[in-house]
């Protein structure tokens, strides 16, 4: 476990170490937002940034993980392998989202990059050290740590919706809230970095049902533009 960590530190700390957290895009929206200046100095020292290429994994289901990761660029899908070997998409991570809130001998899922992405890594043992000097850091992390739990909550709410239209539209609105951007009056640009099959799988729908539903939402004007990697929603 320490070997794995050492490698990742070597790989990712060296080139980007100098980068200041001041320039971080996601600082305002991620767990760092809660840190005071003194805590922040510590965190900045121990944090490492790492690039994850498309299709590479950040953490692997069943394997130990001892770091907290914040997505600073790009996106990930969370996967679980079901009993018979099939994969289930259980969620997506975007800028500002994080995983690995507790260190574990067995990660509950795999996080795989949907595009070339970067994350900040906070090894838990450093976070423990900081906690000695700045008590409360961990508590605040854990307080925000519900986000992982919220992902599961979002998912179960989506899966509980009884029409395909509701399910798809709620999904798009959820993504819109996280990474959507206004794109002119009454237009909301929503990136979809994941393949359609992942969306269908996540929503418990067949690909054909998803395609048909997206087409019908486009037809009735709730989706203004429908492209492979984004939609424009009527705001």
């Amino acid at each position, binding site marked *: 476990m320490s070997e794995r960590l050492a490698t990742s530190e070597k790989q990712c700390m060296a080139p980007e170490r100098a980068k200041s957290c001041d320039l971080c895009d996601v600082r305002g929206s991620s767990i760092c937002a809660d840190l005071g200046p003194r805590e922040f100095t510590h965190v900045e020292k121990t944090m490492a940034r790492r690039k994850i290429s498309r299709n590479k994994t950040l953490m692997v289901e069943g394997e130990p993980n001892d770091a907290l990761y914040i997505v600073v660029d790009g996106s990930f899908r969370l996967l679980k392998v079901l009993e*018979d070997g099939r994969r289930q998409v*259980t969620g997506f991570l975007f800028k500002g989202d994080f995983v690995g809130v507790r260190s574990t001998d067995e990660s509950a899922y795999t996080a795989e990059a949907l595009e070339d992405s970067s994350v900040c890594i906070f090894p838990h043992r450093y976070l423990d050290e900081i906690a000695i000097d700045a008590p409360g850091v961990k508590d605040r992390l854990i307080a925000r740590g519900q986000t992982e739990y919220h992902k599961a909550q979002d998912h*179960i709410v989506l899966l509980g919706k009884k029409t395909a239209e509701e399910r798809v539209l709620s999904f798009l609105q959820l993504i819109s809230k996280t990474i959507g951007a206004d794109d002119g009056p009454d237009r909301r640009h929503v990136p979809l970095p994941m393949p359609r099959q992942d969306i269908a799988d996540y929503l418990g729908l067949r690909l054909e049902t998803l395609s048909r539903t997206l087409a019908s939402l486009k037809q009735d004007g709730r989706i203004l533009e429908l492209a492979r990697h984004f939609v424009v929603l009527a705001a």
Partner: protein
Amino acid sequence: MRPQWRKYLGVRAPRYTSYPSALRFDGQTTSADYRKRLSEVGLYEPLSLYIHIPFCRRMCWYCGCNMRVENDYSRALRYVEALNEEIALVGRALAGAGRPLSVHFGGGTPNYLKTDEIAAILEAVELSLGLTDSTRLSIELDPRLIADGDIESLGSLGFSRMSLGVQDFDPAVQAAINRIQSFDLIDSAVGEMRRIGVDDISFDLLYGLPLQTLDTFEESLTKTVALAPDRVAVFGYAHLPAALPRQRLLDESLLPADELRADLADLADRMLVEAGYRRIGFDHYAKPDNPLARAEMDGRLRRNFQGFTDDPADTTLGFGASAISQVGGLYAQNAKSLADYYDCIRSFDLATARGLILSPREQTIGRIIREILCRSKADIAPLMAALAPKEAAAVRGRLDALEADGVISTQGDTVALAPEARALARVVAMALDPDEKSGAPEAGRAFARAV
């Protein structure tokens, strides 16, 4: 079969598709119990769905299923409506939890329904329980009801496993059981399945039917092997006319004697194994590259209400009249009659009529019995520990007798079924079952012969 095993031929044993057997379900279990267990299902907990279609066009005289001959299709439409409502009710109780790994349509005759109705049921499953392109869809088919284009439509709906009720190819046997279907009919159904890429075709065969002889059955098996299904299930016909009045239509005097029954089972075993099939449990055969055979080799074989399966889900949800669900140590069986089933659904209630909440003791016994049936071997220490001293002594006595006859061997607490005694697996399971007081031939008239 060894001479000293002949005495087990007349033994009647439960099929142990569940433990305790569905005959022990009682009316204490209610829809509220079922609903509660459903609400405890985990977010990504694998689910196996069973959808029961009770209608048939004609009556087969051997049938032991919950079915009815129906000539008015509007009644089937009404049933599908209720079924879809039940699926929605279960979906509401699950509230987004659970992931269906497989959906199996059984009967009766699932292809009594037209493809549009089957598509509508799948849509209800998709919206209420979730259905993805990787969910395995399987269906039992009556070859006589397959119309042009049906197989292709089912294929495009995503059905990748199709099971044909063949029973026997011999015309005289078919006449005696009132199920007449030509070889050409089966041949063309299989051809159509292969053409559209179905790579998991299963045949059901029955031995112990009227007029069956070693010659006729050999011919049926030769035809089976020629059509090369991926799986074959060889069931012994269960003649229980007292419990199943329709079986009285069948001429009892034409039934093969116990000895012949055993020889027919042996013949099927020999011919299928020679043809390259792998033995799965005590009555299934599969080509070595079939998922069922792979599950057996990897020790992942399971037993559910359909028989031996590679489906890994612990939770089975059954839909439709008489369907049985198994969730979190609970068995819940739906009302059997259509009228009762409709009454429940109409009042927006789950249709549970009977069932059982398993005690830890029953769960342990069930687990060990499934081990013996699926892996031919089990450590019986937990079972013995769960029994009262008197019961444990009785189980020990029955096992000793089986060991003396070479049916099983024991090493410490591990009981292993002798490889050639695979057909007697249910007798061994019954020896472990404290509720089956005796393995004597006169016991348990409600059950079918073990062989």
